[in-house]
């Protein structure tokens, strides 16, 4: 009795597993923290459109590079910069010439308090806050861009003592959204909803204040044999995906 029940369970499990792999492939994607919201939407559309599925892992680009160089299983990397994919290319871990820019990131000075950040960022000059959050410029391109903005405004020396640094842009957002830091620099994609800053207040920093944040995607050699991996990269360039990317406040790369 027990034996037949057990064998039925095993057969069902086996059928489920076989069923999964036979008609749809699954791709494991390392996604930079700033791109987590749009990518979640894109992955859902990708599944509907192709039948393949995408498993997303969110984190900082630097950590993904370390993991991939040490045998990490990721098949596609959607980085926050172009340096990380290039580094992997030099290590011979990527499919040659598979790298492209999928989005141009935009930086915003944001506070969880409504009406706190004016639309010219004058608050940075007037001061009155104790903490200014940004992502670690050594690790995150959005942190580096924030430094460029402060240098351009001539406020670096004055504001540096107030810095609190998140390890990645998601943690930086956490510092501000919990109001532990009054304001800080995050990715526009984190605070935008339907084309507007959804909560709190913010200043979308003009593009001439910092070098463009070109976010690079690349196919890893690990994913070369998996049909879902190149399919996902192709889908990233498709009209529905580009619409989602734009909706989250990114600029689109020039064709």
């Amino acid at each position, binding site marked *: 009795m027990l034996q037949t029940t057990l064998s039925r369970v095993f057969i069902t499990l086996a059928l489920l597993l076989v069923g999964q792999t036979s008609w749809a492939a699954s791709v494991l994607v390392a996604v930079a923290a700033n791109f987590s919201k749009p990518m979640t939407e894109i992955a859902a559309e990708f599944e509907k459109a192709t039948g393949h599925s995408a498993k997303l892992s969110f984190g*900082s680009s*630097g*950590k993904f*590079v*370390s993991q991939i160089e040490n045998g990490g299983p990721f098949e596609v990397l959607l980085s926050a910069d172009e340096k990380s994919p290039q*580094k992997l290319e030099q290590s011979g871990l990527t499919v040659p010439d598979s790298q492209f820019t999928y989005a141009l990131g935009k930086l915003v000075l944001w506070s969880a308090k409504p009406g706190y950040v004016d639309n010219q960022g004058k608050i940075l000059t007037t001061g009155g806050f*104790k*903490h200014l*959050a940004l992502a*670690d410029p*050594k*690790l995150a391109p959005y942190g580096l861009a924030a430094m460029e903005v402060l240098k351009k405004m001539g406020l670096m020396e004055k504001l540096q003592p107030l*810095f*609190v*640094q*998140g*390890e990645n842009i998601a*943690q930086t957002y*956490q*510092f501000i959204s*919990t*109001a*532990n*830091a009054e304001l800080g620099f995050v990715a526009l994609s984190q605070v935008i909803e339907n084309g507007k800053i959804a909560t709190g207040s913010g200043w979308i920093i003009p593009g001439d204040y910092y070098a463009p944040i070109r976010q690079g995607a690349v196919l890893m050699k690990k994913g070369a044999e998996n049909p879902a991996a190149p399919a996902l990269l192709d889908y990233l360039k498709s009209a529905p995906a580009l619409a989602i990317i734009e909706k989250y406040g990114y600029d689109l790369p020039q064709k």
Partner: protein
Amino acid sequence: MLTPADLDTLLLTFKVASIATLLMLLLGTPLAWWLARTHSAWKGMINAIVALPLVLPPTVLGFYLLVLMGPSGAIGEFTNWLGLGTLPFTFAGLVIASVLYSMPFVVQPLQAAFTTIGEQPLEAAATLRAGPLDTFFSVVVPLAKPGFLTAAILGFTHTVGEFGVVLMVGGNIPDKTRVVSVQIYNHVEALEYSEAHWLAGVLLVFSFSVLLVLYTVLKTQPVAHQLK
């Protein structure tokens, strides 16, 4: 080699760990004593709360500390009311977070040591008319000395190795909250592997030496026995 910035993080780490260990011994001793002696119905509950940081992911603890100590959290409102400002991103906040995080490593060895002493030495002291404080310092503390040593060393080393909590409430500020574990993590993320190896090596040698002293010279039982 170690850079001056690396050395700063080492120094800061030892400062946090020393102060946290002192605080944990001060708070943990009466708590462990009460837990070892009481028959209260609350004993199980308090034991469970003390042991919670052993099983909770440090990032969970860190995130809720960030929320609670923030301006709209209960602790944050209290410290603001006291005129102290909020605790995240400060040295004091880091010490408090470390105390909460490492407390079971201090309370549990002490509690075990106090339980082992039993009633007899205390009754003997009482028949000699020793007061409770006198009994504690002249009888209990000498008898529980290995427990105190284990508690202090484990509390200290565990705080040195703390990472997830600091990452959440620290904000990576030099000389205030940038401790050695965070510095190693940042070196790795920035792909500065040789700096990371050096700093990790120092930490490894330090931790191993301390534990070696604890287990061979002091002939203490492995932690697992104590933490039961």
